[in-house]
């Protein structure tokens, strides 16, 4: 657990964080509103005798303490999608409206893509980008099972995303849920911390900066970009935001966070960051009994 010790200066109760990280997460499913309603999905689960617990902050999320998500009729009908609870946050923060144009920069395997599509009532356009064919195959299988028809899938490096196939028109919003060092997923993937290196943190931070930068470039002025990771590392969170503020036309805005969260930090080791990064939210596993997460909302300026 030496990786987690690194974050001791940021955390209120290190023992509680450590303990939370050692508990596995229950499987969680999200109701797919393209195909059904929360009420009918509840009835279908009840009819099959599947116990569930509704998340207080999101009525369409059910924790299944005794079951796996993939082996029941509502899943087979595309009514449910297995998705970690905290990962349902960024699409809600982005809050896309029906008919809008959205870019999902790091889309596979598509949990957030399909959630964005559902929030838009499967209208408008979601361009879902990933650079790995195997992961794109998983993304496509999820969009199809969930009945999503407003998604266009592109295989590209998100840093060089091309608007050309889509009439060179900018987006209303973009989601940059970037690849990261993933300490926040330790409850699902206990090996994550063994594979952690500072070198990787610094390398991936360069990729994150470029993806967030591209997301800002392809979004119209007045549009929003949501930046999220599942790491606690300030190098991959506040430092990336600080870089975007300096290099791209954007500002960080406040948002209501339905989960208990801590503000983004302005100092880490020898670095200090713009005061407005405190509008970002840090989500620790011991506060909501969830995975760890980081989420910020940016507005694109002229």
């Amino acid at each position, binding site marked *: 657990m030496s990786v987690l010790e690194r974050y001791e200066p940021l955390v209120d109760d290190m023992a509680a964080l450590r303990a939370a990280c050692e508990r596995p997460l229950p499987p969680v499913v999200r109701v797919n509103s*393209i195909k059904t309603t929360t009420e009918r999905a509840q009835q279908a689960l009840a*009819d099959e005798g599947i116990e569930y617990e509704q998340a207080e902050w999101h009525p369409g999320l059910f924790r299944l303490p005794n079951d796996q998500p993939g082996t029941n009729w509502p899943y*087979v009908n595309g009514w449910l999608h297995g998705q970690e609870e905290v990962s349902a946050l960024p699409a809600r923060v982005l809050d896309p409206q029906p008919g809008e144009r959205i870019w999902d920069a790091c889309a596979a395997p598509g949990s957030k893509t399909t959630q964005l599509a559902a929030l838009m009532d499967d209208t408008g356009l979601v361009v*879902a980008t990933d650079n790995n064919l195997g992961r*794109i195959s998983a993304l496509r299988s999820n969009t199809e*099972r969930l009945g*999503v028809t*407003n998604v266009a*899938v592109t295989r590209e490096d998100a840093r060089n995303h091309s608007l050309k*196939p889509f009439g060179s028109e900018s987006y209303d919003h973009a989601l940059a849920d970037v690849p990261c060092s993933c300490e926040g997923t330790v409850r699902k993937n206990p090996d994550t911390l063994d594979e952690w290196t500072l070198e990787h943190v610094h390398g991936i931070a360069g990729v994150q900066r470029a993806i967030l930068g591209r997301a800002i470039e392809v979004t119209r002025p007045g549009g929003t970009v949501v930046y999220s990771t599942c790491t606690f590392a300030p190098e991959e969170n506040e430092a990336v935001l600080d870089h975007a503020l300096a290099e791209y036309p954007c500002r960080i805005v406040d948002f209501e966070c339905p989960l208990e969260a801590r503000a983004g930090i302005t100092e880490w080791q020898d670095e200090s960051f713009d005061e407005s990064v405190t509008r970002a939210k840090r989500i620790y596993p011991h506060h909501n009994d969830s995975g760890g997460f980081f989420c910020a909302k940016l507005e694109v300026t002229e």
Partner: protein
Amino acid sequence: MANENEGERFDRLPATEAERVVEGRPTRPAVVAWFEERLGIDSAVFEPYSFWERGSGKIWAFRGEVESPVEIQGLGMTALRTRGEHWKPTLEAVQRFGAHATKNCVELTAEQARRFFAGQDQELDWEGDWGYLIVMHEIAGEQEPLGVGLYTYGELKSMVPKGRQREL
């Protein structure tokens, strides 16, 4: 050149026979008419949709418009296979649009639905058309489309793709 099907490229279906440049490519009206004639799905359901071919005979339904042709990895969902004499809808299209169907829908019992989704063929009494049918089952108190079956000679063959089959 746009005169043949290419594996990595989506081409919008032509609006009329006269506009067709790729031999054998169905027109948009022919696809919409197939869903209406075979399954009784009102053509208005597909008004917001454009239809695309990628590879030979694989038709995709996309809610929206982009410039054709377009070289990307996905555009909406696969909806229909038009290779061969009998056109075949996909499981995904049937689950997405099948609630609008008014004919060639067969309702299975829970036990029959279990066999169907496990990929098994089964004997079935069915008075209607032979060929591809929408297989329905009851979930949360209502009939819902589940997949595609092929009915011939008193038997319903499961068309559930291997990767989607489940023992429930």
